[in-house]
């Protein structure tokens, strides 16, 4: 069967599965709709959380980023997993004990103020909507690449599928489809990685393969990679740092507290039966996430070595007659000359997978010195030795550009895996994008129907009415998300940074202070959230333009790019959080204490006994 038909079949089967689950898990009550009835097993919830959390970016782009960044890519790995430790200890069990449907409701009740709750709703909406744009464009890209339809059609199909299971199933439908989506995406990710690790190192576990010797030699894979990239003028793989160690530190911190503060992740912990389950479920979520996150660095490094080996035979891997990659131990050990004229790949000999990806524009060749061969090196290197060698060899600049997203998507083709694996990767990419989109839509619709409509505008709405309001706001959110996916405001790359920045600088500190400081009052919390949000937006917009409109950057005003100790805007959330805490404590000191019953509420939230089913009723 040809690849295209097989891809339609596998992707079609996965969609049928999701919709089947949605029909089985229809939501009949608000409790079903917001918290899946509250009886989800902690392991099941962990799996759903992992799918909820791992987006198109984690699945498709992360390994490519790590591959380009080397050691510095660790900031994504640590940042996006370390947040779960904070979530498990500082937020999840206490919010579960509190027993309500949404994050803004906790903030509104704890800070006895509809203003606080509304500020939280605004932060939640901005964070979730900016994040969802990236997911929708991801859905479009994935569809167009795998199913051969236009990106717009892809987004329409994606909207219809999410509509089918999210609007009717609510959190209940989303939970069980996410479990299925997790299984699809993790198989799609790990199967090619296992094969490649086996080919290169003889070790089937990519996590161990990355630290192993290349098969048949005593040369470690990372040493070889370091040597090759250094010789070609790139920075050393295992020690290259993005910007500075300080920036890496702050960036990692921002991703950690952003992860812990993202409402669509927090909400998943309202669905388990008890406080005890909320604690362990965060651990299970991290186990399921770690399967992908510890595989990603191996995928990144091995793909990089494979790519260099494909274009330069002196690396020591060879393309066998069937097109697959084979280790040649003698060449690996010999450290042959990468600059030898016959080492570079002849353009006409390039493998089939390169030809296929060339058509997408994600892989490009340009024969600058007209020798009919492809030279791949860093022509902007600062190393005089490398420059001299390249010049002596008659190289006139780098001739190959590779989009980082290829790394995961082309992996099975590079390793010559059977077509069903390639089809599975397509289904995996779509599962990753759809599951995160659904989780975000759930957070948005709950904030609108529960916190705004029921909480502020129509307090005595019936349960049936609220359920209807929830479904309608979900449907509207899907249409808006689809529209933004079709007409991305030209800032798709900056959106994830902003989503994390907002979650880190406004929501995380407010929730933490609500639990860990009995005396924190509403004035302090509101001032803190606004200050953290404002400072973060100010710094991000200074770099990327006001609301990301090109030409409105005001870098001059803040003294140039990354002017705050060299910290990049993506990493600024942690600074925003510090500002939030500082402002909150100062304002708290000069205003009056929270009332007695609020202090009693905090006291009760801290103790697991008496945790009830999550009911979401409003107290004021």
């Amino acid at each position, binding site marked *: 069967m040809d690849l295209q038909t097989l891809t339609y079949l596998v992707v079609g089967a996965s969609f049928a599965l999701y919709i089947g689950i949605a029909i089985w898990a229809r939501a009949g009550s608000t409790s079903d709709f917001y918290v899946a009835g509250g009886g989800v097993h902690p392991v099941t919830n962990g799996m759903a959380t992992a799918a909820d959390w791992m987006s198109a970016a984690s699945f498709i782009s992360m390994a490519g980023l*790590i591959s380009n960044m080397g*050691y510095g*890519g*660790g*900031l994504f*790995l*640590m940042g996006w*997993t*370390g947040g*779960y*430790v*904070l979530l*498990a*200890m*500082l937020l999840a*069990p206490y919010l579960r004990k509190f027993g309500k449907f949404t994050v803004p409701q906790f903030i509104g009740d704890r800070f006895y103020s509809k203003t606080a709750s509304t500020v939280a709703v605004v932060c939640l909406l901005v964070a979730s909507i900016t994040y969802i744009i990236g997911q929708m464009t991801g859905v479009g890209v994935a569809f167009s690449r795998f199913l051969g339809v236009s990106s717009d059609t892809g987004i329409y199909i994606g909207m219809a599928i999410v509509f089918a299971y999210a609007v009717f199933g609510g959190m209940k439908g989303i939970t069980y489809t996410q479990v299925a989506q997790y299984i699809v995406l993790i198989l799609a990710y790990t199967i090619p990685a296992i094969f490649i690790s086996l080919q290169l190192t003889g070790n089937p576990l990519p*996590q*161990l393969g*990355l*630290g*192993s*010797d290349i098969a048949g030699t005593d040369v*470690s*894979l*990372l*040493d070889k990679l370091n040597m090759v990239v250094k010789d070609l003028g790139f920075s050393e793989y*295992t*020690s290259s740092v993005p910007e500075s*160690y300080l920036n*890496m*530190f702050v960036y*990692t*911190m921002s991703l950690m507290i952003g992860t812990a503060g993202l409402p669509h992740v927090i909400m998943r912990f309202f669905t388990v039966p*008890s*406080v*005890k389950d909320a*604690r*362990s479920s*965060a*651990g299970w979520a*991290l*186990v399921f996430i*770690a399967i992908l*996150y*510890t595989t990603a*660095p191996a995928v990144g490094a091995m793909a990089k070595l494979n790519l260099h080996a494909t274009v330069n035979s002196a690396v020591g891997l060879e393309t066998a007659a069937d097109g697959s990659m084979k280790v040649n131990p003698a060449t690996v050990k010999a450290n042959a000359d990468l600059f030898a004229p016959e080492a570079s790949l002849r353009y006409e000999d390039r493998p089939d997978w390169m030809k296929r990806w060339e058509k997408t524009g994600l892989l490009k060749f340009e024969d600058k010195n007209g020798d009919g061969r492809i030279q791949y090196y860093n022509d902007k290197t600062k190393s005089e030795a490398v420059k001299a060698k390249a010049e002596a060899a008659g190289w006139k600049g780098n001739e190959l550009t590779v989009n980082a997203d290829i790394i995961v998507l082309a992996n099975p083709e590079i390793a010559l895996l059977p077509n069903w694996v390639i089809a599975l990767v397509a289904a995996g990419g779509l599962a990753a994008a759809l599951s995160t989109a659904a989780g975000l839509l759930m957070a948005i619709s709950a904030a609108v129907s529960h916190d705004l409509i029921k909480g502020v505008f129509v307090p005595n709405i019936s349960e049936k009415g609220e359920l209807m309001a929830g479904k309608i706001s979900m449907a509207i959110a899907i249409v808006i998300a689809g529209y933004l996916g079709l007409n991305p405001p030209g800032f798709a790359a900056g959106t994830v940074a902003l989503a994390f920045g907002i979650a880190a600088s406004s929501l995380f500190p407010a929730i933490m202070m609500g639990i860990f400081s009995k005396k924190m009052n509403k004035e302090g919390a509101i001032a803190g959230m606004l200050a953290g949000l404002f400072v973060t937006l100010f710094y991000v917009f200074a770099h990327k333009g006001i609301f990301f409109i090109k030409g409105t950057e005001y870098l001059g005003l803040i003294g140039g790019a990354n002017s705050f100790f060299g910290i990049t805007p993506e990493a600024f959330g942690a600074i925003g959080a510090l500002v939030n805490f500082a402002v909150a404590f100062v304002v708290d000191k000069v205003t009056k204490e929270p009332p007695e019953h609020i202090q009693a509420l905090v*006291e009760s939230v*801290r*103790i*697991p*006994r*008496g*945790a009830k089913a999550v009911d979401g009723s409003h107290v004021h």
Partner: protein
Amino acid sequence: MDNNSAAYWKATLGLLTKILVIWFAVSFGAGIIFAPALNAISLGGYPLGFWFAQQGSIYVFIALIFYYAKAMGDIDRKFDVHED
């Protein structure tokens, strides 16, 4: 009861502090601040600082959460505030 709940909270914060110290040490410490120094040591084929940044800290995070869940359960029972 007041005394008891103060003691319970103190025990909880003690546990959190312990875990956060390890959380910080493996990620920001071994993975970033001391990574260049640790890279001189190798673990199998991994430079140690690189290993902590890309693998090790994640394994430790998982262990920390399950340890936390267990230790917290013990504290709950000790102070008789566990769920029934």
